[in-house]
């Protein structure tokens, strides 16, 4: 028998775990070992695909295609994540980057919050593909937007044709 708080139910089927549900949707659980999980955590994971082999979006938002998009916070068409609640978001990307066989190839990868650069990384090498990664914890308010963009690049981009990288955002706390 659950404990109902105006439609939010706290229940424990066996007396060893706790579930917090809204209707049939589980919002939070604490298992017998004390592990706390939040199945509705806003989250996306995706890759670029169908883009140019050297993809920089012309300096615009990288159009990552989400494989998973819990909460529908990510927009494939615009490359924009909209934060549903205030909190700290883990923003991580990794992809091979270069100007494939260019002798002079460099650029920057940036995470932008509400259009303002929040954090960035830089690559500078000629020839072949090299791995580029950037992870950030972004403090955001509800409604804030997060995007990835390349900037100040010369003969360069990430591998945009599929595989070779991934992009993800998840609410941490």
């Amino acid at each position, binding site marked *: *028998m*659950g*404990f109902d708080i105006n439609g939010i139910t*706290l*229940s*424990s*089927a*066996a*007396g*060893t*775990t*706790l579930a917090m549900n809204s209707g049939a949707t589980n919002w939070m*659980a*604490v*298992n*017998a*070992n*004390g*592990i*706390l*999980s*939040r*199945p509705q*955590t806003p*989250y996306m*994971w995706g*890759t670029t695909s169908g883009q140019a082999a050297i993809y920089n979006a012309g300096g615009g938002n990288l159009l990552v295609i989400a494989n*998973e998009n*819990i909460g529908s916070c990510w927009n494939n068409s615009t490359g924009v994540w909209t934060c549903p609640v205030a909190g700290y978001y*883990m923003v*991580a990307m*990794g992809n*091979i980057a270069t100007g494939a066989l260019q002798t002079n190839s460099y650029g920057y990868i940036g995470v932008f919050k509400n259009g303002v650069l929040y954090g960035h990384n830089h690559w500078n090498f000629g*020839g*072949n*593909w*090299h*791995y580029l*990664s950037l*992870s950030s914890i972004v403090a955001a308010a509800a409604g804030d937007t997060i995007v990835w963009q390349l900037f100040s690049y010369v003969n360069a981009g990430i*591998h945009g044709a599929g*595989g*070779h*990288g*991934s992009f*993800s*955002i*998840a*609410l*941490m*706390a």
Partner: protein
Amino acid sequence: MPININGYNLSNASGLTFGASSTKIDSSGITDPFLPAVFGSRTDVAAGVIRTYPWVMDSTTTNVNSCWNGSVFTCPVTGVYYMSWSSIVGSGAGTYGLHGFIGLIKNGGLLYYSYRDTNNIWELQHLEVTIKCAAGDTITWAINIAPAPDSTTGAGAYGANHNASTIWLVG
């Protein structure tokens, strides 16, 4: 006075506590000391290039709930997990064309991969991503060998330190 839910007590002991666990919510946020997490590195190969599956991580400094069994992480609960694998990768010889692939392997199948494409002797590779997993799902990595793509070259990871990997539950 605690709230008893079918024998499960929610109580206030300097914060909201859950049953007999040490998980707590208080003014500092959520404390979850049994958060599934592993951090470690491979140290067991004296030197040289490793093309291997699954990825052995013999030295762990963190292995909460013993989810990592030495070469595979088993997710104890459904959720979103952060995963990071990093190592210097190469051939040890700087030979051009020794490209190779590093794959993230979920339940024995390739989920995504990265690619080494340089003629440097050793170069850092870093794969990081957050992935939704179900309870019981398994995670490991494959280094230039199936089920990752296999370039059939000699490129691989370095097996004596120079590498670090971590997995933990985000939520």
